[in-house]
C-alpha cells in the first residue's frame, strides 16, 4: 500500500486504508461527481511515520497506568503525546510523497502553494475513531508544502485527544493499533456558486434541472440575500430551456488574506449572466449524475472554481435529497379516459395545448 492515494484512483478495496471521508470523495469522483480535487495520505503513510518515530515505545511509556478519572493527568499526557506527534520527523519517502503530490495538485491548478484543506479521515466506521470524527482536526487555507506536512501531523495528533484516548482505555483498545488517514483537498475559490435541484421546484417537473447562481461564494444564494440568475435545463437534452438574469448587487469573495468579505459588484458585472452555457450544462450534468447515483431527486450545492481549467471547474460541494416534491405522491398523466387512442386524439384537437395556460 502506498502512502498516498489520489481521489481518482480510489476503489472500494482501499476503504480501510484511506478512511471514510477519502473513500466518499473517491467514490464521488469515480461516479462523475467532481469534488474539489485532492488526495489522501493513507494509513500506510501514518503507519510508516508511526514506526519510523518508534511511537509504540513512546505511547507505551507515557500511557502506562493512565488513570482516566484524573482529568489533569489525562490532559497533560495527551498534550505531550500530541506535541511529540506534531514534531516527529517523517520517513524521507513518506514526506517526499506528500510534498510531490501536493506540488502536483498545485501544478494542476496552476497555482504555487495552492491553498488546501487538510482533514482527518477516520479509517473504520465501527471503530471508536468514528465516534470522534467530529473532533478530529480540520485545517483550512493551508498553503505550502511545509505547512501541509505540518497539518498532516496535526491531524494524526488528533488521534490523541483526551476523550479519544480515555475512550480507548475504557474499552480496552490498543493505542498503538489506531490509525488515521488524512485528506488533502483544494480549497474551492468560486467565481460563481449556487444550488441546483433535479426537478423544477415551481411545478415538480422531473425533466428539468433548476439552477440558482450568483457571483462569488454560495452564501448569497443560500441565504437569499441576492436574487440569483435562474436557469432551467432540460435533463435529457441538457439544453437550457429558460434563463432569467438578475441584478446581483453583491457577492461574498475572498480577500488576499484567505478570508471572506461581502462586497458590492460593479453594475455591468451585476447584470451579466454569472455562468457560461458550458458551465450551466456542466452543473446540470453534475446534478443529473448525483440524482442517478443516489437514486432520488437531489438538492445540490456547487461552485465554479476559478483555479481549475474550463471543463473541470464545476465542483460539487454538497448533495442531499430534495424534500418538497419528493414527498408528494406523483400524478399520473394517463387518466383512464385516455385509454382509447382516438378519444385521446379528439381531446387533443378539441382542447389544444396552446389554449392551456401553461402552454
Amino acid at each position, binding site marked *: 500500500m502506498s502512502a498516498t492515494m489520489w481521489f481518482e484512483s480510489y476503489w472500494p478495496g482501499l476503504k480501510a486504508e484511506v478512511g471514510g471521508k477519502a473513500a466518499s470523495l473517491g467514490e464521488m469522483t469515480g461516479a462523475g461527481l467532481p469534488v474539489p480535487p485532492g488526495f489522501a495520505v493513507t494509513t500506510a503513510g501514518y503507519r510508516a511515520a508511526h514506526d519510523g518515530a518508534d511511537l509504540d515505545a513512546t505511547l507505551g511509556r507515557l500511557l502506562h497506568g493512565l488513570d482516566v478519572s484524573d482529568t489533569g493527568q489525562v490532559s497533560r499526557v495527551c498534550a505531550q503525546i500530541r506535541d511529540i506527534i506534531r514534531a516527529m520527523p517523517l520517513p524521507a519517502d513518506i514526506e517526499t510523497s506528500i510534498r510531490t503530490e501536493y506540488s502536483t495538485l498545485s501544478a494542476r491548478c496552476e497555482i504555487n502553494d495552492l491553498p488546501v484543506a487538510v482533514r482527518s479521515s477516520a479509517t473504520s466506521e465501527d471503530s471508536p475513531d468514528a465516534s470522534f470524527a467530529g473532533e478530529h482536526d480540520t485545517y483550512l487555507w493551508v498553503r505550502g508544502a511545509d505547512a501541509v506536512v505540518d497539518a498532516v501531523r496535526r491531524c494524526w495528533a488528533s488521534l490523541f485527544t483526551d476523550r479519544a484516548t480515555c475512550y480507548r482505555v475504557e474499552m480496552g483498545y490498543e493505542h498503538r493499533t489506531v490509525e488515521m488517514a488524512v485528506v488533502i483537498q483544494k480549497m474551492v475559490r468560486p467565481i460563481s456558486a449556487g444550488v441546483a435541484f433535479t426537478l423544477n421546484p415551481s411545478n415538480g417537473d422531473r425533466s428539468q434541472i433548476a439552477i440558482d447562481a450568483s457571483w462569488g461564494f454560495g452564501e448569497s444564494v443560500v441565504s437569499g440575500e441576492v436574487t440569483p440568475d435562474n436557469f*432551467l435545463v432540460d435533463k435529457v437534452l441538457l439544453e437550457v430551456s429558460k434563463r432569467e438574469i438578475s441584478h446581483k448587487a453583491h457577492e461574498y469573495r475572498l480577500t488576499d488574506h484567505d478570508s471572506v468579505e461581502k462586497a458590492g459588484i460593479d453594475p455591468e458585472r451585476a447584470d451579466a449572466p454569472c455562468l457560461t452555457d458550458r458551465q450551466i450544462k456542466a452543473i446540470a450534468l453534475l446534478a443529473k449524475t448525483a440524482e442517478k447515483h443516489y437514486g432520488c431527486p437531489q438538492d445540490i450545492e456547487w461552485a465554479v472554481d476559478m483555479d481549475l481549467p474550463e471543463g473541470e471547474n464545476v465542483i460539487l460541494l454538497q448533495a442531499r435529497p430534495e424534500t418538497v416534491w419528493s414527498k408528494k405522491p406523483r400524478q399520473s398523466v394517463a387518466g383512464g379516459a385516455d385509454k382509447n387512442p382516438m378519444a385521446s386524439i379528439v381531446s387533443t384537437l378539441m382542447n389544444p395545448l396552446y*389554449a392551456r395556460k401553461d402552454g
Partner: protein
Amino acid sequence: MADRFPSPFDIETPEGAEGWQEMYVYPSLFSEARKDFEESMFWFQDGVHWPQVMTPWDATFFEFAITSLSQYNTRHLQVPPANGIAFRILNGYGYLTPVPADPATIEDRVANFMDRAGFYFMNWDDLYDKWMIKIRNLVQELESINFEPLPEIEDADEVVKSGAGLGSGYKIQENYRTLVDLSLKLWNYHFEFLNLGYAAYLDFFGFCKQAFPGIPDLAIAKMVAGVEVDLFRPDEELKRLARVALDSGVADAFTVKDVEQTCQILKGTDAGQAWIASFQESAEPWFNFSTGSGFYHQDKIWIENVEIPFDFINDYIIKLQAGEDLARPMEAIRAERDRVVGEYSELLASDEDREAFQAKLGLARVVFPYVENHNFYVEHWSHSVIWRKMRQLGEVFVKEGFWGEANDIFYLKRTEVEDALWDYYVSWATPEPAAGPGYWPGLVEKRKGICNALKKWKPVPALGAPPEIITEPFTVMLWGITSDSVTSWLGGGDAKEGELRGMAASPGLVEGPARVIFSPDQISEIQQGEILVAPLTAPSWAPIFGKILATVTDTGGMMSHAAIVCREYGLPAVTGTGFATSTITTGQRIRVDGNNGTVTIIE
C-alpha cells in the same frame, strides 16, 4: 400597442401595380360582396410556403393546396373543431384564415372523425403503401404528357387510318386539362394523410407537455423523427456521388467549376462516363429537387440546373479530401433517439404513464414518415415535372409568337392558358392568323411590371383582428403562428430593442456575421462561418448547412420543412421571427439562441 391589424380593404395597391387583381381568379380576392366575412376574420400571410409574389399561374398550387386541406378537414374526416382554411391573395401574397366548426355540429363530427380517422390510423401502413403507388403513377402520368407544336398535317396511320377520330389539336388541349387535373389530384393526395399525421403527433406532443411542462418542443420532435428520411435522400446522393468521384479518380474534373467542361473531361474516360451514369441514376427522381419551396416556377430545380448539384458535389469532394466524414451516423442517431426516449420514459410518474407514452409515441412514429417524406414526392418531384411540362407548353407558344419566352406562360392564369390553347387550335385548324400574338405580349409585359411593383411591397404579416388566443392546432404547428408571435407582430410583447423572437426550432447558441438572402438564387453567396438569415429555407439547401453556423427565418413552425432539416444537421435555428430579413443586414454580428428562440443584433 395596436390591438388589430389593418383591414384587407385598407391595404393600398403599390405604385405601378394597379390592376393586379386581374392576375388572379375572382374567388381568391377579398371582395366587397362578402365584406362582413372578410373583416370578421384574422388573416395571416403564409410566408412558409409562399414568401414571394405569386405570378398568375403559380397561384394555382396555392389555390389547389389550401382547398384540398380544407376539404379533408371539413368534408372527408370532419376534424371536430376545425373546418378548412380560407385563402385570399392580396398584392400578390397569400393570406390564410382558419375557419372554426360550428360548435353545434361538434358532437356529430366527433363520431364521424373517430370512425374515419380511426380507420386511417388502424390501416395506416396499407393505405400509405397505396399512397406511394398512387403518387408514383401520378408522376408517370405527368411524365407521359408532351406538348409539341401542332403538325402541318396529321400522321396518316396513327391518326387518320387508326380510326381514332381525334387529332393533335384535341390532344394538346386534353393534355393541358390533364396536367391541371393531375395537379389538383396531387394536392388531394397530399392532404389525404397530412392532417392525420399532425393530429397523432399533437396527441403525443400534448401528453409529453402534460407530463413534463417544460419539455422542449425539440425533444418531442427528436423522439418521433425518422432516421431514414426520403427528404434527406437528395443530399445523401450528392455525398455518394462525391465519394464515387474520389474513389474512381475523376474528382479533378470538378475543379474547373464549369459544368460543360466538367462533363467534357468526364466523358473522356471510362471512369468519368461511369460517374455520369451514376449521376443520372441518382438524378431520377432525387434531383427533382427545388431550391425553393417548390411553389414557384422560377425556383431552380437541380436536375434542370446541373451546376447546382455539381457545385455541392464539389464542396463535398473538398470536404472528403480534407478528411471529413460525411456519412450520417445512422447508428449514433438511432442510439441518441433511443436514449432520449428511454430517459423521458424513466422520468414518468408510473408504469401506466409509460405504457401510454409508448403507445402514443408508437402511433406518432407510424404516421410521421409521411409528414417528413410527402414534401419530396409532392412539392419537389411532382411539381418539378409539372413546371417542366408547363415550360414545354410555354415554348410551343413562343414558336407561335404568343410571347417571348417559355416562362411567360406563368403570367397567364390557369384558365387563360385554356383560352390561348383554344386560340392556337382554331388558328391551326382554319388556318388563319392567331389573335394571341397581338394580345398576350402586351398583357405579359404589363403583368411582369405589376409583379415587379408588388415585389417591392413588404407584405403585412396579418390582417384583421386577432383572436384572443390562437388555438387552431395545425396553424400553430405548421405556420408557427401563436398568440406570442401575433403580439410581437403588433409591436407588443417583451421583445427588447435589437432582439427578435421566434420559435426555438433547433437548439444551440452561436454568434457570427449575418448573411441575409432573399431568394434561392443567392445561396451561392453564403460564406463559411456565416449565419443564414432568409425568409425561409428549403430542404434542398442542406448542403450549405455544412458551411453556416445557424439559421434564422422570417416564417415557419416547429414542423416546417426547414425546421426538420435544421435539426437533422444539428444547427441552431430560430424560425418564424417575422422580420429577420428586414431587420438584419448582411455583415452585422448577431447572436442566435436556438434554445430560447431569440436573435440579438450585437453590432
